Structure formats: C-alpha cells, structure tokens
C-alpha cells in the first residue's frame, strides 16, 4: 500500500494474525460467553483493519482515509471502554456491596479524568481528536489502577487471566497517553514513529490477551456466599466508633509524648 512502510505493514499483519488467533480461542473455548464485550471489541478491531485496508488502497494520506480512520477509532475507543467495564465487573461485581460503591467511584474518577484531559491543554483544533482520545485513555488507565487498588484494599484476588486482560488494556492506554502527549510536542518529527509505536503497543497488548485467553479455561460460575446485611449494619458503625476512639487515644499518647520531650 502506498504510504505505508514495511515495518508498519509487518506489525499490522502480526496484529491481524494475533486477533484472529484470539477470536479463535474465544470461539472454540466458548469464552465469548464469559467476555462478550471483549469479544465484540476484538471483532470490531479486526473489522477496522479490513475497513482501513480498503481505505488505504486509495492512499494512506488522503482525506477519506483520515476520516475513516478517525471514525473507526472513535467506535473502537467506546468498545474498549465497555470491555474495560466488563473486566472490572469480572473482578468485583460478585461482591455486591463493595461493587455498588466502587463502580460509582470508578465512574466519577473516569469522568474527572476525561474532563481534565480535554480541558487542560491549550485548544488547538488539530488536536481535538488526540485530546479526546487521550482523555478516554487517561480515564481507562486510571480506572484499571483504581480497580486494582480497591481489590487490594478489600483483599480480593482477581483471576490471573482477568488480571492479564486488565494489564493489556492498561498498557495500551498508558502507551496511548504517552504517544498522544509526545505527538503534540514533536508533531512534525514524530508522526511516523507515533504510528509505529502505537501499533507495537497494541500488538504487545494483543499478545498478553492471547496468553490470557489461551490459559482461560471455561470458568465455573463463581459463587460468593454473602453475609446478611444486618451483620454489616451492626458491626461497621461499632468498628468505626472504636477506631475513632482509638485515634483519640493515640492523640492522648501523642500529647503525652509532646509533654515529656
């Protein structure tokens, strides 16, 4: 294809092979039932490759190609966001109580991340799309980090495969943030390298997902036996009160040490 160098073509071909393998494993092992949104995301990405292939036949730098690429990227960003939501659900949703709290926190932090990423930089029309993309990437990366922080805080250990899926998404999002930021500062010298590195980061993420899906057996429907809600409502306020008193007591120790020193 005119305008695409060999390295990009090679990474692109490798990505398509990896995506096909990923979809095959998802289909054969019926894991698309466990990760339907993730499967749709991979399908859409593969379809995007096909659409772009046709568009690039008319020329890599043409306006039509650019518009097609922007549109498909938008669709893929939304699909990726939904796939991340699915991963979050797999990690924590069976713990209904904490999930009800956590998804709200994640949603709020994602909203803040998107807004700050779009509004913070100086407005230049040519960077509206990269800024919006970067905003979503910041939101996705932040959401995944917060998800794992919450899981750690509540001592929930995610399955290794689900963790790998999250790591793949996180890696790609982080790399896209870095890429879009550098693009704005080194625009004229960086465009070619930008597309190379972006595609390479996606290929690495694909390989991580491939490994996760390959090792993902048909996961049994996990059961979580929950306590009755009275237990929490009886214990939680009492514990908080005790902790509060304990802190007051520590303050007294603090004051005593201050007096003695």
């Amino acid at each position, binding site marked *: 294809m005119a305008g695409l160098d060999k390295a990009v073509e090679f990474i692109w071909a490798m990505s398509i092979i990896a995506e096909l393998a990923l979809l095959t494993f998802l289909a054969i092992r019926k894991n698309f039932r466990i990760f339907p949104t993730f499967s749709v995301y991979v399908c859409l990405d593969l379809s995007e490759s096909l659409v772009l292939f046709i568009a690039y036949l008319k020329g890599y730098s043409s306006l039509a190609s650019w518009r097609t690429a922007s549109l498909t990227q938008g669709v893929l960003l939304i699909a990726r966001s939904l796939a991340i939501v699915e991963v979050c659900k797999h990690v924590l949703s069976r713990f209904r109580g904490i999930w009800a709290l956590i998804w709200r926190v994640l949603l709020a932090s994602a909203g803040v991340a998107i807004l700050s990423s779009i509004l913070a930089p100086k407005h230049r029309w040519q960077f509206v799309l990269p800024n919006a993309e970067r905003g979503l990437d910041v939101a996705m990366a932040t959401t995944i980090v917060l998800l794992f922080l919450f899981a750690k805080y509540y001592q929930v250990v995610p399955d290794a495969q689900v963790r790998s899926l999250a790591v793949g998404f996180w890696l790609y999002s982080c790399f896209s943030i870095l890429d879009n930021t550098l693009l704005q500062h080194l625009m004229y010298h960086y465009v070619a390298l930008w597309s190379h590195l972006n595609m390479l980061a996606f290929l690495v993420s694909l390989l991580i997902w491939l490994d996760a899906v390959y090792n993902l057996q048909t996961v049994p429907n996990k059961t979580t036996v929950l306590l009755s809600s009275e237990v929490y409502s009886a214990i939680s306020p009492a514990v908080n009160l005790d902790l509060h008193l304990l802190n007051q007591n520590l303050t007294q*120790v603090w004051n005593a040490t201050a007096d003695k020193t």
Partner: protein
Amino acid sequence: MTFDFISFFILGALLIFVFVWVLHQPAPRKSVSKDDVSLEESGSTHITYLPQIRQALAPTDLAYLYERMPGPLAQKVQKQRRKIALSYISALRNDFRSLLHLSRVIATLSPEIAAAHEFERFRLSLEFSWRYLMIRIRLRCGATPFAAVGSLSDMMSGLHVRMETAIRELAKRSVLASELRSSLDGGGLDIT
C-alpha cells in the same frame, strides 16, 4: 516543555508506579471468602499480656525503682521499658490491622454497605497509621508516655471484646451458610 506535557508525564509515571506496586505487593493467600472470618486469625491478641505490660509501664513502679536503685541502673531499666513500650505499640498496631482486615472482609461479604462508613474507616486507618508513626518517633527520641500507652491498651481490649462477639456470630452464620451451600451444590447462587 509545557505544563500539560509535564503534568501528563507525571500522571503517566504515577500510574505506572502505582500499578506496578499493586501488582508486585505480596498478594493475600486467596481471595476473600467466608472462611476468612475465623476465630483463629483474630485470636492472636497482645491484649492478653496487658496486665504484665501495664505493671511494667506504671509510673508508680518506675518511681519506686528510682527510689530503690542507683540512678544509672534505674535509667537502664527505664530505657528497657521504653523498648517494651515500642514493641508493645507495634504489637497493638498488628492487632489494629487484623481488626481492620476483619472489618474489610465483612464489608466485602456484605450485600449492602454504607459508603460513609467505608470512607470513614479508610480515613481513620490513615489517621492511625500517621499517629502511630509519630508516636514511635517520639518514643525513640526518649519520651515515656507509659500511662497513655496503658490506656491505649484498654481501648484495644474493649475493641477486641466487641469484635470477638461479632466473630462468633459470623462463625455461626458461616457454618449455616456452608451447609446451605453444600445442599445447593454451589449452583451459581448468592446466598444471603
């Protein structure tokens, strides 16, 4: 280099650091389950040694020692007791942590939780950690807040009594839930 470039660079670095930290911390043995709510885990309490510790840290006891012993020897004893105070508050922190762990397990296994309680507990645990650190520093600098440490122990003792009562209740429920679970053969249900 502009402000947004630097801020995104810092944000990226922070995300990487936190993520690597979260993934590389020694993970708990297993995911949280009802089995975590066991008496054995929270039974190792340092409050058991409270009477001995209180006697050793009592200001009257120290005054008595100063009356009966030569100065340098009494100072040596005081120094040793300061060490005891240090290791004691360190043990109390472990108790605090295990209680906090238990409360998190209860929150995780509850079908409904109150956001306000969770944020409050998080804030209190941060406060505890900060004060604990400061007190340790002051104890190392030579302060001897023995009476205050003793009252801290009282506080922990009360907390333990309440928590142990709760744990017994949970253990009973856990047995009931296990029986129910085995009778349903784990068919994808959340038994509340």
